[in-house]
């Protein structure tokens, strides 16, 4: 089954709030969505084709498409192209694939879905939104490119994988969970980390509250790469050893950064 396909009728000249446009939504064409400071029917902006409740494809993305897959509970949502802010925010299930880049707060407060973004993401990947105490709490997000400021801020669980570089303040106030970076850190990473694990290629860019705890053969690493395809892909299935840095000791944190040499 191909599922529904949304094809933009033209370029957008204001932000589009796609809240509610999910696989399985009934009467997509008439779904009321935000367009700038008006509400319009989804059918005004997109032509809707195909059928099937399990899958929804947006054939033609745009950085103006906000809240794509926000609150997704099941099914698959695929975007050919870029998306805007709050991709898959609070999604509890299903999977999201973006063949392009995403804006700020991608996978923010994710709670169980699997999100893959082939390109870059903006600031606060997997972070807590306004007023929320916790960021991504379960599920997985994999970013093929690089991530913006404060990726993983207040992450509470789950797995974040960024294959490229991560801007300043990664894992700020991270509470728990696993955050893996294939590229470089740009500084101030892990500030305020309470618990949780950073899996890194280099300790360069960690904040000053981390202290070296030596090289270790960790059985846990073997389990991680066997249970997480994304981590296996990044670090190889033979992963067994890492250098452990503990932090953020300034906040009496019990988190760790595990440096996996290439």
């Amino acid at each position, binding site marked *: 089954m191909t599922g529904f396909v949304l094809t933009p009728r033209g370029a957008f000249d*204001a932000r589009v709030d796609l809240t509610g446009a999910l696989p399985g939504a009934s009467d997509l064409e008439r779904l009321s969505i*935000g367009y700038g*400071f*008006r509400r319009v029917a989804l059918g005004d902006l997109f032509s809707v084709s195909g059928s099937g409740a399990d899958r929804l494809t947006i054939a033609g993305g745009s950085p103006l498409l906000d809240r794509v897959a926000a609150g997704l509970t099941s099914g698959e949502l695929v975007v050919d192209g870029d998306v805007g802010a709050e991709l898959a925010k609070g999604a509890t299930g299903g999977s999201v694939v973006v063949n392009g880049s995403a804006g700020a707060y991608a996978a923010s407060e994710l709670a169980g879905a699997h999100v893959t973004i082939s390109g870059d993401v903006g600031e606060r990947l997997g972070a807590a939104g*306004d007023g929320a*105490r916790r960021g991504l709490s379960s599920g997985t997000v994999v970013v093929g490119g690089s991530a913006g400021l404060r990726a993983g801020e207040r992450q509470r669980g789950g797995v974040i994988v960024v294959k490229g570089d991560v801007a300043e303040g990664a894992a700020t106030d991270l509470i728990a969970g696993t955050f893996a970076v294939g590229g470089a850190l740009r500084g101030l990473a892990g500030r*305020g980390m309470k618990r949780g694990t950073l899996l890194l290629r280099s300790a360069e860019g960690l904040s*000053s509250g981390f202290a070296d705890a030596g090289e270790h053969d960790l059985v846990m690493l073997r389990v991680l790469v066997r249970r997480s395809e994304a981590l296996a892909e990044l670090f190889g299935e033979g992963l067994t050893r890492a250098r452990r840095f503990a932090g953020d*000791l300034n906040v*009496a944190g019990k988190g760790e950064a595990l440096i996996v040499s290439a």
Partner: protein
Amino acid sequence: MAETTSHDVVCPFCGIGCDDVTLTVDGAAVTAAEGTCGRAAQLFARSGAPAPSARIAGRDVSFEEAVAEAAKRLGASKTIAYAGLGTDVDGVRAVLKLAAKTGGSVDHYASEGMFRNLASSQRKGWVATTFAEVRNRCDLFVVVGPDPSKAYHRVYERVLPATGRFVEGPRRVVFLGGAPTEDAKSQLEGLSVEIIATPEGGLVDALSQLSALVAGSVPPAAGPEIKALAEALKAARYGVLAWSAASLDDDGDLVIERAVSVVDALNVTTRAACLPLSGKDNLTGAYHATLWNVGFPLRVGFRDGVSDHDQTAYATANAVKEADLVVWTSAFRPELPPASAAAVIALSHPDTVFDTEPAVFIPVGQPGLDHQGLAFRADSVVGLPLRRYRDAGLKSVADVVTLISEARA
């Protein structure tokens, strides 16, 4: 018209709410007396020249024409950013009502610092205090980060006189990661003033350590000064951590969150509170009025009459990027609207000198000079009654916005 002098005038600008200003008004000319802080005196002062005409694209027009043009532009726009919001509570209410009708985002131009505060207060909460409590109870006052008196000129004079009703012995003032200005030093004369320097960008770590220390842990990197400060705070009867959120840098939210947790831990055994300062040009009033009318703390968007809150998308800096029309209100000072590609309707201070001439300019009166109104003090609780002291033919933002709203139909 004879020159009149008014005493005990309330100053609406920075949010400290001094009410000992002496204004001399002669026709439209205004002078603020010595004793008022320099910034306020400058902002109160008016030359006496007649108010400028309303303008459309730089062309002088009648007030009515300008209102009609503004209404027309509102009707023709898709994406409106209501920005500035430097006005009294009634002005804010009027803008919110109009925005609900036209759709658009609403934010105050000085709200950046406030949202750094909200990152903690909205998310986890805090224990805060007000000026009079600090004035009478605070025995250890910790200034977190840059000296707030740069923005709040008379803050120490107001909250830290040499003696406090319930303070035994001299008050201690500690500047953590900042240093007092010369003016601050003179305001603080007679008090014990210490400075704990932090390395560049090290304020977050220093406060992290302080927070861990007061909660009973010993972070390995904590230096003796931070350790001593933690002990002093635990021993203080009413310790206060104060900061100006706007003068902190991009990590300000993290600084604040840690300061809040220091206070939280202290309150288990003794008393302590935060004094978060943010409130220029009635920011606090705009925050309050938006909360009670809309349910959200500024940075709201109206879409088909229904409101929504997004601290990123509806922040002025982001909203103007998407907007085709910016409605700028700045009645307290000649503040310039943010640069953007959008057309601007400026309901502005009559002395505003624009870089780019707005599509519509309507000069408005200053609350607390040209009309009465309500503003809020920077510690959030106290409302400041603003009175009218002259008639320069300038309408209030509330009146102008209401007229534009009526002209839309």
